[in-house]
């Protein structure tokens, strides 16, 4: 192993993928004892740049220098040997193995070919004690929470002696409190002379944790500033290339009947164990009900149960007073439910279908688009052209395969299809996940527009900003239950964070 990393530079990095210039002569450097933030929208080239540093991709041009010496990093093994560790956004853990097995993976054992997990467990406990990241070495990864899994990833890197830790969107899956703990941990690590590169698109997080910020836009470096000399507005401008549109919405109060009522809903997950344990809530016409929570606490199953995609074990779902609990998806659609699913590409559309086909998916058998068993091409074409124009779907033509569109444009297509059908209730599951700021703003406007037209909107999201900004009321999901439903005025970040972690603020007060 080489000497400790005092300074790491990446110079003139160029990486092309078919049709995309992902990194265009990017220079960055980071020194020991420093947290560097790589800020940028999705597709700006942050992850590509770090995958090059970790040896997963090879740069088409450019060089990497450690302590001034050029190094060839052509595999993750090489990166590990250089003292670089990376925690990927999607964890690289084997769920069926224990924590210590995951850590030992790929490492030589003291007993030659025989596995020797005892010293590994001991080191894991030591590292845990040093950094305050304790996990049980004998636990299976599938038993761990997402936050604990992230700790395993960090331990994996530290175990291999990482001097430089790269973290890709580390807080995306954490509750606000867990994110706070992570920031403390990262500060401890740099205080001991390590360095950290954190990839993020969240401005407040970058402001909170980093010493310096490099902003990437369309594969190019759009700016570099010391965190102390900048503010979120300036960073947003660098990231998007224009000022963010100000957005505000007055929360309203509703009374009267709910358009969608859910009573004591119980649903199982794919493993056959309970995902929802008695959920009751309602949404009024014209209201936006936000559903907050760390993903995996039943939100997905909730959306699927309402839209008829998942069997309801017990409880009731009523749409404008009619029971839809055991209806088929088609019956539920016809009764007036619109659905923007979590997986927009594979559930929301059929990626290999052309755009007009996807726009028509729910109406292809209805007049005026069908005459008997035949499709009426002229009507369909006129209708599709209008939707593409109205919703600003950027596409060469109506015959383009939907899967070739960007995420933002696919979401526009789905919004166009769902909203023009004028449903009574619109369920939107993580509608802005992975979208850039411009596309997310558009989705927000359309959801607000839908509520103004009298639709009841259910917005499921893990982005607290988004839920707080758009909702009239917020329901917090934890472990298949609703912790609390709050008017948005009472839903500050701290309260929501505690509820998302399964604690009621009162509990916390008595415990503290």
């Amino acid at each position, binding site marked *: 192993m080489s000497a400790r990393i005092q300074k790491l530079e990446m110079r003139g990095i160029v990486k092309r993928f078919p049709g995309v210039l992902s990194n265009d002569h990017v220079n960055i450097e980071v020194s020991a004892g420093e947290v560097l933030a790589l800020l940028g929208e999705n597709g700006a080239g942050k992850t590509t740049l770090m995958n090059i540093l970790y040896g*997963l*991709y090879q740069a088409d041009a450019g060089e990497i220098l450690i302590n001034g010496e050029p190094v060839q990093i052509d595999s993750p093994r090489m990166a590990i040997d250089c003292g670089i560790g990376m925690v990927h956004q999607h964890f690289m853990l084997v769920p069926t193995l224990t924590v210590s097995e995951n850590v030992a993976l*790929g490492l030589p054992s003291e007993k030659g070919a025989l*596995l020797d997990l005892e010293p590994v467990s001991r080191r894991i406990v030591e590292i845990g004690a040093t950094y305050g990241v304790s996990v049980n070495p004998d636990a299976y990864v599938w038993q761990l929470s997402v936050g604990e899994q992230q700790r395993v990833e960090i331990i994996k890197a530290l175990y291999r002696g990482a001097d430089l830790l790269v973290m890709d969107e580390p807080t995306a899956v954490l509750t606000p409190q867990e994110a706070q703990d992570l920031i403390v941990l990262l500060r401890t690590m740099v205080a001991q002379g390590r360095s950290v590169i954190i990839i993020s698109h969240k401005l407040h997080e970058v402001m909170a944790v980093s010493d310096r910020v490099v902003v990437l836009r369309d594969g190019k470096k759009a700016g570099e500033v010391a965190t102390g000399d900048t503010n979120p507005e300036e960073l947003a401008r660098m990231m998007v290339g224009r000022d963010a549109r100000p957005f505000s919405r007055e929360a309203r109060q509703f009374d009267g009947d709910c358009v969608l009522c859910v009573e004591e809903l119980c649903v199982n997950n794919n493993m056959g164990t309970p995902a929802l344990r008695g959920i009751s809530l309602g949404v009024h016409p014209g209201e936006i009900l936000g559903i907050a929570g760390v993903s995996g606490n039943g939100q997905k199953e909730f959306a699927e149960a309402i839209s008829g995609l998942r069997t309801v074990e017990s409880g009731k779902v009523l749409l404008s007073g009619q029971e839809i609990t055991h209806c088929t998806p088609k019956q539920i659609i016809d009764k007036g439910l619109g659905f923007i699913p979590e997986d927009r590409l594979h559930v929301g559309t059929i990626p290999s279908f052309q755009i007009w086909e996807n726009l028509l998916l729910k109406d292809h058998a209805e007049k005026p688009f069908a005459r008997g068993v035949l499709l009426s091409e002229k009507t369909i074409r006129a209708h599709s052209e209008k939707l593409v124009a109205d919703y600003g779907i950027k596409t060469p033509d109506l015959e383009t395969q939907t899967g070739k569109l960007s995420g933002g444009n696919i979401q526009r297509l789905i919004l166009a299809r769902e909203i023009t059908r004028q449903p009574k209730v619109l369920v939107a599951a993580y509608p802005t996940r992975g979208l850039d700021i411009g596309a997310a703003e558009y989705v927000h406007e359309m959801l607000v527009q839908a509520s103004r037209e009298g639709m009841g909107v259910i917005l499921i999201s893990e982005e607290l900003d988004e839920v707080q900004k758009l909702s009239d009321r917020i329901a917090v999901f934890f472990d298949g239950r609703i912790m609390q439903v709050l008017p948005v005025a009472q839903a500050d970040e701290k309260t929501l964070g505690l509820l998302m972690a399964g604690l009621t603020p009162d509990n916390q007060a008595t415990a503290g």
Partner: protein
Amino acid sequence: MTEGLEQGILIGMIATGIRLATPYLLAALGEMLSQRSGVFNLGLEGIMLMGAFSGFYITYVSQSPLLGLLAAIVTGGLMGMLMAFVSVTLQAEQGISGIGLSMLGWGLSGLFFRLYVDGIQSIAGLKAWKIPGLGDIPIIGPMFFSHHFIVYFAFLLVPLLWFVLFRTTWGLSVRAVGMTPQAVDTMGVSVSGLRYQCLILGGMLAGLAGATLTVANTHMFADNITAGRGFIAIALVYFGRWSPWGILAGSLLFSMADSFQLWVQVLGINFPYEMAVMLPYIVTIIALMISFGRVWPPAALGKPYERGVRG
């Protein structure tokens, strides 16, 4: 007197079952390795046929069953490597390339047989080897310790593979690569390398399984002599939940049912012959339908690994 006869039948039935289990056990343990590494090798039947032929042919030419078995193992390994090249390096759809490999093995073994042997020929073959001491124990000896040595090897392979999978660093990597190949890749271990190793080892075992039929059991070769045993072995991997012990249980269940129907026929018991032949398959299907406990099939099974593409 009748008591002795009944006892003899029971001993014969169990001994036959154990002998019949051997090719299934070997092939299924090999397939378990392939699938544990994330490759669904549907070409098992073809590999077994090639092993069956090359084992038979080399024994026929050299008069040495041991050389024959060695040839079968090498042939199986080469067939496994071919499967690895197509499915790992070229990233072809595994189900289709497996069917291709099965057809190739079937066609080639039949062709070579007609070209180089032509007609039914008998070979010296492998003799049973009674384990000294153990083989002399009454009842148990003839049941378990009076077989040819591949039987002992196949049964010893069960704890051996269990040990390799769960107690060695290589085994840890194999268990990981079929589940989360990206975790293995980012820890600096070659995903392709592991899959090649598992497919070659799996092929070697399948080749030996095929040769067991020709060199040890029947002492002859006939076109399509495996008669679907490769596919049964694949089903046994699912039955055994990718565990050596589970596969042992499945192989024994299937072959005991098979042995039972054989003996029913031999003894001329008045029972429809067609029903008897179906018995092992029905038992297997019923056993596959009953699920117990939590199952973790290799999550990456059947998916070629590409960096940067999420499973």
